[in-house]
C-alpha cells in the first residue's frame, strides 16, 4: 500500500478532526409505490457519537438505518461512512435487529463466530477464543454451548450484541434492539451497552420508541416527524460518561426526558392538529 499523493489528500480528504464519521446529506427515499419515507434528511455523526432516532411510526427511522447500512438504496442525496459509500464501509459496521435473529441450529458460540467466519482469515480456534472473550463481556459464559431456544429474550439479545461486536465494528446500527424486552431487562442492557461502548469506543446510530432509553444512552437525540420523514429536533444530551443507573432519578435527566417527550407530542399533535 502506498500513501496517497499529498496534493490529492489535501484536496479531497479533509482532516480527521473536521470530517464527520458518518455524513448524511439531503437524503431522500421513495418506495416504488410512490410514498416518500424520507425527505431531505441531513445528519452528521462525529466519531464516538451515540445518536438516537426517535419519532412516530412511519417517520422512516428504521429506513434511515437501512440506508446507512447500505441494505437499501437511497433515492436521492448521499451517505458516507468514514469517507466511503455504505456498501464499501460494511466491514466497519454491524447491524443489530429488533429480534435477535440468531441461527437456531447454531449454539451461542456458533452464532457469535458467524461474522468472523464470513469474513475469513481466522482459524477456528482464533474465532472460538474471540467468542469466549465476548461471552465474558456480555456475561453469558455459562451458556456458551446452549442453543438459542434455551435462552430468554434478554439473553438472546446479548448474544446478538456479542455477535455484532465480534467483528470489531466502528459503527453500530441498532434497530429497536430492546423493544421486545421487559423494562427491567431493558434498563440493565442499556447500562451494559454503555459499558461496552466505554471499552470499545464505537459510534452508534440507535432507533427506539422509548424516550427514557434514548436520553439515557445518547449524546444526541434526533426527533423525526412522519409523512414524509424529516428531522424536527436535534437535542444534545450533555451528561458525561460513564453514566450510572442513578442518572435515571437525576432531575436534569428527567427534565430532558420531559423536553424530548414534549417535542414528540408537538409532532403528533402538530399545527395541523390530530394524530399523524
Amino acid at each position: 500500500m502506498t500513501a496517497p499523493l499529498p496534493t490529492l489528500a489535501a484536496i479531497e480528504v479533509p482532516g480527521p478532526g473536521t470530517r464527520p464519521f458518518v455524513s448524511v446529506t439531503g437524503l431522500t427515499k421513495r418506495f416504488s409505490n410512490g410514498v416518500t419515507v424520507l425527505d431531505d434528511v441531513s445528519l452528521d455523526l462525529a466519531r464516538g457519537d451515540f445518536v438516537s432516532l426517535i419519532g412516530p411510526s412511519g417517520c422512516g427511522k428504521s429506513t434511515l438505518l437501512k440506508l446507512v447500512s447500505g441494505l437499501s438504496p437511497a433515492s436521492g442525496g448521499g451517505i458516507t461512512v468514514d469517507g466511503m459509500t455504505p456498501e464499501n464501509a460494511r466491514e466497519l459496521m454491524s447491524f443489530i435487529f429488533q429480534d435477535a435473529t440468531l441461527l437456531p441450529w447454531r449454539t451461542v458460540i456458533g452464532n457469535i463466530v458467524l461474522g468472523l467466519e464470513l469474513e475469513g482469515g481466522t482459524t477456528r480456534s482464533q474465532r472460538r477464543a474471540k467468542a469466549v472473550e465476548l461471552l465474558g463481556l456480555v456475561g453469558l459464559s455459562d451458556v456458551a454451548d446452549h442453543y438459542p431456544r434455551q435462552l430468554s429474550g434478554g439473553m438472546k439479545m446479548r448474544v446478538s450484541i456479542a455477535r455484532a461486536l465480534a467483528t470489531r465494528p466502528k459503527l453500530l446500527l441498532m434497530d429497536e434492539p430492546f423493544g421486545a424486552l421487559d423494562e427491567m431487562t431493558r434498563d440493565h442492557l442499556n447500562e451494559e451497552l454503555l459499558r461496552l461502548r466505554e471499552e470499545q469506543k464505537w459510534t452508534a446510530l440507535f432507533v427506539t420508541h422509548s424516550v427514557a432509553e434514548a436520553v439515557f444512552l445518547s449524546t444526541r437525540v434526533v426527533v423525526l416527524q412522519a409523512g414524509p420523514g424529516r428531522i424536527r429536533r436535534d437535542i444534545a444530551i450533555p451528561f458525561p460518561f460513564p453514566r450510572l443507573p442513578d442518572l435515571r432519578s437525576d432531575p436534569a435527566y428527567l427534565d430532558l426526558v420531559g423536553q424530548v417527550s414534549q417535542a414528540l407530542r408537538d409532532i403528533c399533535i402538530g399545527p395541523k392538529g390530530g394524530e399523524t
Partner: protein
Amino acid sequence: MKRFLSQLGWPIGVFVVVMVAWHLATKVFEIPAYILPDPLRVLGAGLEKRANLFSAVRISAAEAGLGFVASVVGGVLVAFVLAQSVVIRRCMFPYTILLQTVPILAVAPLILMWFGSGLRSIILIVFIICLFPIIANTTQGLISVDRNLLDLFRMGNASRAQTLSKLRFPHAIPNFFVGLRISSGLSVIGAFTGEMFASSSAVGEGGLGYSIIYANSQLQTDYLFALVIACAALGSCFFFTVVFFEWLFLHHWHASAMRPDPE
C-alpha cells in the same frame, strides 16, 4: 427407554384388541376364509411361505429404496436450481407440478414400453412418484428464510455460496424432512405400482406387488393378507428410518423434533 415403552404400550394394546375382535368375528359370523381369513391363518400362511415372503419383501425394499434415494438426490438438486431465482421458479415450477398431477398409472405403460420390464422401470416409477414432495418442500425451505437473517448475511459481505451453505441449506432441513416423510411412504406404493406393470414373473424375482396379484388370482386370501401386512411393515420401516434421521439432525434446535414441555 421407560418412556419409549410406555409410548409403545398403547398402540400395542390397540393391536391386540383389533386382532382378538377380528379372530372372534371370523368365528362368530362364520366368514369364509377366502373373504376374510382368521388372523391366525394369515400368520400361518406367512410362516409357511416365509421364503417367498422374504424374497418379495427384499425385492420390493430394494426397488423402493433405490428409487427413493435417487429421488432424494434428484429432488435436492432440482430444489437448489429452483431456489436460485424467481425467474427460474416461474419458468420451471409448473412443470414439476406435472410430476404430481399426471397419474403414474397412465405413465407406467409408457415407461414399460421405453425401458422394458424389470428393475429399471420400477425404480424409475418410484423415482417419479417420490420426486415432487422432495422438490416442493426443499425449495420452500430454501426460499423462506427470514428477511433479517438474509440482511445479516449481506452485512457480513457473505458470498452466495456462504449464504447457501450457512443459511439457506440448514434452514431448509426441517422442510426437507417433511418431504422425505411423505416420499418414504410413497416409495413403497411406487414399487408396488411398478411391479403391477413391470415385474418379472420369474421365480424369486417378483416383489410384493407381483406376489399380491398372484395370490389374489389363486384365491390365497390368507397369504394375500400376509403380503399386505408385509407391505405396510416395509412402508413403516422406511418412514421410521426417516423419522430417526430427522430426530438425529433436528432434536438440538427444531421445535418439531423436541420433547413437549412437561405439564
